């Protein structure tokens, strides 16, 4: 089976890289072969951070620089990311999953399905509990919405249950999951969801 390609989008600082770090640990423990492509503006910051983390051999982490608005390389012209994914697949034929992290963007950012088979959108409580209500395309159209940083909801005056209920309501019943990448909660549910919907394993 060819490796699944999934996208991870969402605003700057919502916890996309933190989620990838958590997922890498889970995938390692269940023996799923993974590689990662990061997208930053004009640096390789996230890729360097993941390489330093040491959860994957460094050559399984590629960086693509968007140069401009991050959505351009995941939607309007995803060829750079597609080429990076092809390179990873050619080099590591055993890969089962390639995760592509978009550079942090606004609520309108979405992934082209020419690039990924499936994508999730990560928002967090500190960005405000009104984010789901604003009905951005990323929030509405993603295959999975992740609401991260549940641990700090009380500190930023967010009623977390109400925020999750609103998120589910605007998505017409499509899935939304709560996580805290800091505490590790909700990660197992994300993995479970990915295994069922995308990895088939």
């Amino acid at each position: 089976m060819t490796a699944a390609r999934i996208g991870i989008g969402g605003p700057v600082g919502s916890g996309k890289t933190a989620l990838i770090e958590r997922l890498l640990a889970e995938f390692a423990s269940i023996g799923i072969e993974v590689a990662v492509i990061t997208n930053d503006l004009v640096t390789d910051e996230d890729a360097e951070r993941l390489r330093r983390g040491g959860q994957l051999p460094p050559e399984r982490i590629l960086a693509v620089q968007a140069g401009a608005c991050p959505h351009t390389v995941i939607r309007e012209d995803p060829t750079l990311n597609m080429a990076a994914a092809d390179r990873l697949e050619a080099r590591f034929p055993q890969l089962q999953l390639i995760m592509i992290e978009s550079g942090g963007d606004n609520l309108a950012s979405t992934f082209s399905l020419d690039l990924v088979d499936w994508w999730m959108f990560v928002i967090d409580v500190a960005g405000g509990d009104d984010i789901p209500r604003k009905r951005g395309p990323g929030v509405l159209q993603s295959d999975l919405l992740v609401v991260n940083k549940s641990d700090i909801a009380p500190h930023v005056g967010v009623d977390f249950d109400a925020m999750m209920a609103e998120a589910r309501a605007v998505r017409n019943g499509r899935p939304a999951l709560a996580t805290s990448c800091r505490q590790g909660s909700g990660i197992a549910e994300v993995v479970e969801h990915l295994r069922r919907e995308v990895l088939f394993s």
Partner: protein
Amino acid sequence: MTTDLPRLEISTILGSAHDDLHDAVHALEHRGRVEWIDIPQADAARKRLRATTDKRRDCLIALPRSATLVDGAVLHMTDDLAVVLRVDSGARLVLVPHDLQSALRLGHWCGNLHWKVDFGPGSMTVLLDGPEERYRERLRDLETLAGFHIREESAEEAEA
């Protein structure tokens, strides 16, 4: 919800029910042995998805990058069962600009909204990925700036 019909793992497209496998699919259809998977056009670009047939059979689709899910794609074929894909291409809006200036505006506008479009003679077709009203709202904002109309398609045109 899926039933306990045996799950299918699909890793290639075997042919087309509109073309090379037409007769084979047709024969199985007579015996009620064709199952259909319906997906919206927006999902057709995926190479991997979990889908359910009309008989609620669970299908795990994982295609090579070079394969494309198109209407009529035969995903499974034995003496006793065919599984065929139907792609609903219904959701689209055909925009007709009234003059060159308006055409430029219209193109620039839709481009800025990152809409997926197809170009036709004298018109531009927007492939909808979400509720139609969301698109019409954005187009209403443009009405004072450009002359254009939305061409209502007949069912046959939409088929073609």
